[in-house]
């Protein structure tokens, strides 16, 4: 599974309204759980447990909060674009890729994380994504 295959218009938040790390994570998780009908408290707990192991901010204005857990189906992606930089464990982040996968989807999970990392290695694509004003613009940048 790659970024193009994982992206869904209803799972793109532009602009992100949260103003700090926790409120952005909650916004992304809320979006996912509303669309996919997952248990919000469980997903939030799994994401925060992973954050305790180490920051998921990877530099260049990007964070990839992720977790694997029991009670979700498949591999799920929420993309958030913030108009302002968010302080995320002492990193400044504008692009968020939340990945939540079922425990049994390791291969697809790793494939998606790799695809996101490849995409974010391009400063041109990062800048285009950060300049997006709508979910449609995000889709166009990623599908291009």
């Amino acid at each position, binding site marked *: 599974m790659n970024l193009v295959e994982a992206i869904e218009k209803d799972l793109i938040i532009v602009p992100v309204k949260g103003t700090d790390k926790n409120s952005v994570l909650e916004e992304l998780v809320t979006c996912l759980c509303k669309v996919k009908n997952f248990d919000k408290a469980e997903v939030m707990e799994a994401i925060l447990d992973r954050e305790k*192991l180490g920051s998921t901010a990877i530099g260049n204005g990007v964070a990839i909060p992720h977790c694997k857990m029991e009670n979700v189906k498949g591999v799920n992606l929420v993309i958030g674009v913030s108009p302002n930089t968010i302080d995320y464990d002492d990193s400044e982040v504008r692009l968020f890729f939340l990945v939540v996968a079922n425990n049994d989807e*390791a291969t697809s999970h790793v494939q998606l994380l790799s695809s996101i990392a490849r995409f974010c290695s391009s400063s041109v694509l990062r800048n285009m994504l950060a300049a997006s004003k709508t979910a449609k613009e995000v889709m166009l940048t990623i599908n291009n």
Partner: protein
Amino acid sequence: MLFKKILVYVDNSESAVEAAMYSILLAKENKTKLDVLYVVDTKSVSDLYKAHIFVDIEKVDYERDLEHDADKYIRHIKRMALKKQVEVNTHIVNGNAPVEVNKYIKDNAIDLLVLPKVSNIRSRREELTSDLDRILRTSKVPVLIVRADEEIWDKFDEDR
């Protein structure tokens, strides 16, 4: 006999199962040896670790999960081959799929490579990094691509 040793490359997709089914039927029909190769993508895990997306404990954890996925698929293919009384040599290796497939072909005198279907082009960027695409383009032996088709399932069920 045109092909003496067939290799089918499988990953974690349903298309790979279909490619394996087709290969099993092909090997049976042609009385040919069939090898099955699954590459556990440890390179991607290492890259994610180097990019600080995975922490130490995750690297170990995900590598174990990927190996578990590989075992699951290979066991399934072995059961399918047994049903058709076709002997298969199954191999699970770690690394980068295009590199490992080409190495296997060379080391084992494979003369036909069977691949799962290559996905429709939705993004040129993703196509450039697709393992299947790279295997297809770099193979030194003829390649047969199995298109996902219900007929394969019907044929597999009826051919007893």
